[in-house]
């Protein structure tokens, strides 16, 4: 094997891995908000993402809504639909242990999967993305699927928007204050309950957006809610509680590791992403950017 050949393979692994990592980031960032910021072990994140996927697909096929608008609808509808869940169920368990939170949200996952299987059937749903996203782009040394590039772009946009929202706006400052010290925030007049409802709706909306965007790459069946759950959880746990920066970094590292592992040792399958996760968590139990 020539050096050039090795370099080209290496670049391919890296670029594919980064694109894959961006996908991981997009579908996980909503969980970084609910689990990371609010400290709730929200295993139902995948259920909201799956619901978002179904909203997107149904909007497009039944109402003929264009892809981009369907994504916005998924974000808004699922975000709004999550509010009663937060008020009636999640809010009771903010101070409970992880076990209660895990059980509640696993219960919700089972119920959502059953409800969507009943409504849509277990068969996979197809999505038709706009033509400009379905081809591939030639970069000279190799070609890339246009949709992957689109995901990288969307990921970068989301990163920027979230960073700006949390770090530079007054709403973001209030959310950070409520997370850091709930009582103090309340005593200076921040309505923490309402803020948490809003934050939760944002996290669920982001989950739905991620779900809608992922359908074209992952396909969509009701089991989506549990199939990719471990990936979301890993990305957020490795990234560190409530850190957008950590989530990005974790998604990219795990994306490249998984891609390299699958490419170099096809038989090893997904083994490497879990080994990397365990190693990272053993070294930094609170995640890359978490507070110890």
């Amino acid at each position, binding site marked *: 094997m020539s050096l050039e050949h090795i370099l080209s393979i290496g670049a391919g692994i890296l670029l594919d891995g980064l694109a894959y990592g961006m996908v991981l980031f997009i579908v996980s960032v909503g969980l970084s908000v609910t689990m990371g910021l609010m400290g709730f072990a929200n295993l139902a994140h995948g259920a909201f993402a799956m619901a978002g996927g179904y909203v997107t697909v149904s909007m497009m096929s039944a109402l003929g809504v264009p892809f981009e608008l369907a994504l916005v609808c998924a974000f808004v509808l699922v975000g709004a639909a999550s509010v009663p869940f937060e008020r009636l169920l999640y809010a009771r368990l903010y101070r409970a242990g992880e076990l209660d939170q895990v059980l509640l949200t696993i*219960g919700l996952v089972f*119920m959502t999967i059953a409800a969507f299987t009943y409504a849509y059937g277990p068969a996979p749903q197809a999505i038709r993305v706009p033509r400009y996203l379905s081809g591939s782009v030639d970069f000279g040394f190799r070609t890339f699927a246009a949709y992957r590039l689109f995901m990288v772009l969307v990921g970068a946009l989301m990163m920027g928007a979230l960073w700006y929202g949390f770090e530079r706006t007054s709403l973001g400052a209030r959310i950070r204050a409520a997370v850091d010290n709930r009582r103090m925030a309340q005593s200076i007049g921040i309505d923490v309950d309402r803020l948490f409802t809003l934050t939760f709706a944002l996290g669920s909306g982001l989950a739905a957006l991620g779900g809608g965007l992922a359908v074209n790459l992952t396909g969509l069946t009701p089991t989506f809610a549990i199939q990719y759950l471990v990936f979301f959880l890993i990305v957020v746990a490795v990234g560190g509680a409530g850190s957008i920066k950590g989530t990005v970094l974790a998604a990219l590292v795990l994306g490249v590791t998984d891609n390299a592992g699958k490419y170099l040792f096809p038989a090893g399958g997904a083994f490497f992403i879990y080994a990397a996760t365990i190693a990272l968590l*053993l070294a930094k139990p609170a995640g890359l950017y978490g507070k110890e």
Partner: protein
Amino acid sequence: MARSERASGAAAAEFLLKRHTLRPAEALPWLIGIGAYFAFPDYMALGTQILIGVMFALSLDLVLGYAGIVTLGHAAFFGTGAYAAALLAARLGWSEPLSGLAFAGVCAALAGFVSGWVLLRYRGLTLLMLTLATAIMLYELGNARADITGGYDGVTGITIKPLFGRFDYDLYGHTYYLYALAVLFVLFVVARRIVYSPFGQALVGIRENLRRMEAIGSPVHRRLVAIYTIAAAMAGVAGGLYAQSNAFVTLSALGFERSASVLVMLILGGTGRLYGAFLGAAIYMLLEDSLAKLSPEFWEFGVGLVLVLTVLFARGGLLGLLERAARRARGLWR
């Protein structure tokens, strides 16, 4: 003031002295177990699977209910035991059943000891993620080494010699039922001794107040690793029995669904009560057998709904509800 304190102290001492004595009601599950053998001879295969489920849930109760270790990867030990027993019989040709079970238990205990030693220094969400990732890593390892595990097709060709060289297995699984019932009884006696020993008391202390246990000099990490290893061995025996009775193991023995379902069984029955595992596993698996075939969606929705309702209104599970009802009835009586 002083008198009432002394009185409550005496009551506490009496409680501590008496709480491990056998109550008549404790014979009930065993009477039902033996009664079912005579009453439902056609359902022995299902009965055996229920007994295995009870065993597995009981091992989780030691870890989760008593020591308060929240794990999402308990199937790792069930699967390790199942594959150990299966590979011993199918690949190495050792087909004596009891030593096969012992081998399954030892292999799972080893896995529990090593992973517990490393992981049990962590708590909360991190521990949750670590147990989950460890179990899935094991699953992927089994998937990657399909040459050993048979991959998705599983290990087949498990032949087991007659029990004690005398009792052969009939088509309807009568022998296996009694075999599983006996193994469960032995494991239960061990578990019961553990939870009422000073060691078991220390575990409850760790569950209730970790910092205080550390402050009074309890070797927290060593104790957690010890119970994790014991529970892993029990889960491994349950897995080994599963492999022997089905003569077949696939990767599903290691999967996340299995970790989740055993958690549901235990929560449904009630944690930290030993008998919660009996009630939860029996009800879950009986309902699954009838409802899951009738309408899988309805079954799955029901499981989810029960979980949500349990968390919100009945944290002690079914046994907790029964205890509450019994206490209220006794209050009315007086």
